[in-house]
C-alpha cells in the first residue's frame, strides 16, 4: 500500500522525435484507484510501463512509497501487473502461476500454498488450480492474471487494459469484481483503458491523456461536468458531446436557422480573448426532440435513430447547415429517417471552448459540484 508519484516524467523512444509521454506529473495517494484513459497513442500504456519499470525514463522521476524508483529494475519495485493478454506462464498450473512471485521471493511452500488458496477463493478459482492456461477460457485466464497480482500484497496494482479481451457481458461483470476487490484490499491501483465508460465507473480519479500529455485529472463527475478542454469534453461521455465551431456575435451563435444565446461567462471570456469564433458543446441529454408541429427549436431532419431500449439517440441534420446533432430521448423512439423535427437546447447547459486552443471558456465561474476548487490540469 503506497503512494505513487509521477514527477515531470518524459519518455522518448530512441529513434523517435516525439516523446510518447511528455512531462507527466501525477499524484496517486495511497489506496486510490487511478484510471489513465485516452485514445491509442496517448501514452497511457507507456506511462504504466514506466511505473512498472519495463520502460526507461528519459527525464523526470517516479516515486513509489516515497522512494525514487527511477533507476530500479521492475523486479525490485514490489508492484504487481495484470497484462492485457494476461501473460500467464504457459507451462505452469494455475496454482504455480499465482504462486510464482512468492516462490521468487523465497516464501516457504506452506505459506505459499495457503496464500494461493486465499487468492484463488477470492476469485472463484479453487476448482481450476491444477489446470494449465491453455485449458482455461478467456475469463478464467483473466482471473488467474488477477490472482497472480493480488496474492503478492504489493505496493501497487498496475493493470493494462485487463478487460479488453473479454466479451461485452463478461467485461461488465468483471469490472464490478475488480472494483469490489480493490475496495476490499485497499491497494493503490493504476489502471489503463481506452474505454471511457470503464474509466468513469472504476476510477476514484481519472487522468485523461492525449499525445503523451495529461489533459485533466479529476474525479469522474468533475470530468463530465467540468471538462477543461474540448478534447476531454468530447472524450468523456457516450454518445459524444455535440461539438461545433460557430461564429460568435454579440453573445449569440447561429445554430441551424436559429440564433442561440450563450451563457454570460462564455461570452465575456470570449470577448476578453477577442474571439470571433468559438466551439460550442452540448451533451445529447440536453437536447430535446419534438415533432415539427411543436414550433419552437431548431429545424432539423432525422438521419438515423439508434434505439437501445431504455433510451434512444436521434441523429438529425440541422436545416441550413451541414452539421448534425445527436439528441437523447427516452424510451423507444420510432421516428423514421427523413422526419422533420425540432431540436430544443437548454441554453444554460451550453459549453464553450476557445476555437484555437480548445480551452474551456468561462470555466471556474460555473460551480456544479459546489467544491469550487479547480481540477488538476495543464
Amino acid at each position, binding site marked *: 500500500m503506497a503512494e505513487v508519484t509521477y514527477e515531470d516524467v518524459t519518455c522518448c523512444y530512441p529513434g523517435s522525435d516525439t516523446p510518447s509521454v511528455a512531462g507527466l506529473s501525477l499524484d496517486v495517494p495511497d489506496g486510490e484507484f487511478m484510471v489513465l484513459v485516452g485514445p491509442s497513442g496517448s501514452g497511457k500504456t507507456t506511462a504504466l510501463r514506466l511505473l512498472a519499470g519495463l520502460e526507461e525514463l528519459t527525464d523526470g522521476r517516479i516515486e513509489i512509497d516515497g522512494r525514487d524508483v527511477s533507476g530500479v529494475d521492475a523486479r525490485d519495485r514490489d508492484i504487481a*501487473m495484470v497484462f492485457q493478454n494476461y501473460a500467464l*506462464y504457459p*507451462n505452469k498450473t494455475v496454482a504455480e502461476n499465482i504462486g510464482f*512471485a512468492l516462490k521468487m521471493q523465497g516464501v516457504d511452500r506452506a505459506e505459499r500454498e495457503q496464500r494461493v488458496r486465499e487468492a484463488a477463493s477470492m476469485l472463484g478459482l479453487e476448482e481450476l488450480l491444477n489446470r494449465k492456461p491453455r485449458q482455461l477460457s478467456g475469463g478464467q485466464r483473466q482471473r488467474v492474471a488477477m490472482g*497472480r497480482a493480488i496474492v503478492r500484497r504489493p505496493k501497487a496494482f498496475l493493470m493494462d487494459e485487463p478487460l479488453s479481451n473479454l466479451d461485452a457481458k463478461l467485461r461488465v461483470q468483471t469490472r464490478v469484481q475488480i472494483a469490489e476487490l480493490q475496495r476490499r484490499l485497499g491497494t493503490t491501483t493504476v489502471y489503463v483503458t481506452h474505454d471511457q465508460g470503464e474509466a468513469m465507473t472504476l476510477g476514484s480519479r481519472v487522468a485523461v491523456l492525449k499525445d503523451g500529455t495529461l489533459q485533466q485529472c479529476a474525479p469522474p463527475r468533475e470530468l463530465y461536468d467540468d471538462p477543461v478542454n474540448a478534447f476531454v469534453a468530447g472524450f468523456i461521455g457516450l454518445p459524444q458531446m455535440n461539438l461545433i465551431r460557430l461564429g460568435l456575435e454579440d453573445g449569440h451563435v447561429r445554430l441551424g436557422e436559429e440564433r442561440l444565446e450563450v451563457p454570460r461567462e462564455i461570452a465575456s471570456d470570449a470577448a476578453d480573448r477577442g474571439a470571433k469564433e468559438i466551439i460550442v458543446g452540448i451533451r445529447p441529454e440536453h437536447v430535446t426532440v419534438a415533432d415539427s408541429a411543436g414550433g419552437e427549436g431548431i429545424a432539423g431532419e432525422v438521419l438515423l435513430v439508434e434505439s437501445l431500449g431504455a433510451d434512444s439517440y436521434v441523429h438529425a441534420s440541422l436545416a441550413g447547415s451541414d452539421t448534425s446533432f445527436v439528441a437523447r430521448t427516452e424510451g423507444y423512439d420510432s421516428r423514421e429517417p427523413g422526419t422533420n423535427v425540432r431540436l430544443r437546447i437548454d441554453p444554460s447547459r451550453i459549453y464553450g471552448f476557445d476555437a484555437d486552443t480548445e480551452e474551456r471558456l468561462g470555466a471556474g465561474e460555473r460551480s456544479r459540484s459546489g467544491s469550487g476548487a479547480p481540477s488538476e490540469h495543464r
Partner: protein
Amino acid sequence: MSATAAPAQRVATRRPRGAEEAKARRERWARRGPLLPALIFLIIVTQIPFVLTVFYSLFSWDLAKPGSPHWVGLSNYGAVFTDPVFFAAVLHTVEITFISVGIATLLGLGLAVLLDRAFVGRAIVRTLLISPFLILPTAAGLIWKTTLLDPTYGIVNWIIRIFGGTPVAFVTAQPMASVIATVVWQWTPFEMLILLAGLQSMPRDVLEAARVDGASALASFRELTLPHLRSYLELGILLGAIYVVNTFDAIYMVTQGGPGTETTNLPYYIYQRAFLGFEVGQSAALGVVTVVGTLIVASVALRVMFSIFIEDNTAKA
C-alpha cells in the same frame, strides 16, 4: 471438402447409396493422390535396395573371388555377431552420436542465447556462426586434420606450444576427440539455429510478467524459457542424431577409421567391408543388422519421447 482431419459433416440427403460411396471414394483418392508420387519414389529407391540387401545377406559373395555367389543362409549373420569389430563399431557410433549431439546442442543453446539479444554486429556474428554448417564436410575434415590438428604444423598445437605444453598428435593419439571435434564444429550451427527460433518464438509479455513478479534472469530462463524450448530441443536432437549417426565424411578424411579400428563407426565399417573388402554378403548382413537396430531404437525413441508424434497437429479449419 473442409481442411480438417475429420470428414465434413454431411446433411442427410436422399441420394442413392452408390453415388455417396463413389463420392467418398473419390474424396479419399483426391487426398491420397498428391502423396503418392513422393511415396512411391521413396519406396522404390529405398525399399527395393533394402530388400536386395536382405537377399544378398543370405549369400556368400566376394566380388574379388571368381567363385559364384552361393547360398549360406544365415551364417553371415553369425559372422556379424561374433565380429568384435562390429561391436566396436556400434559402440563408436553410439559414442560419437551421443557426445557430438550433446555438445553441439549445449553449445548451440549457449550461442542461441547470445544471439537472442541485440548487440552491435549481431547479423555478422550470426553469419560467421553458421559457416561451419555450410562448408563441405569433406573440406571440413581436411581442414581439421591438416591445418588445425597436425602435430607439427597445426594451429591447435601452435597454441599449445605458446602456452608451454607439449604438442599432441591428435589424430593418432586422440582420434575419437578429433572426430568428435570436427562433427561438433559442423553441427553446432544447426542446433543453434533451431534453438534460436525457439527463443525468438517466446512471447515477450510472459517474460515481462516474470520480471515484474521478481524473477531474476536466471530463474526466468530456468522456469519459463527452458520448458518452452523443449519441443525445439527434441527436434534438434532428433534431426542431429539422424545425421550424425550416419557420419562418414569426417571419419573418412580425418582418421580413416583408425588408428586400427579405434574410430570406425558402423557406416564406415560397412563401407570398408563392401568397397575395400569387396565382401558383398557380409557387408549386406552388416547393413541389415544396422538397419533393424536403428529402426528399433528409433521407433521407441520417437513414440515415447517426442511429442510431435503424439500430439495431433494437422491443420484446423
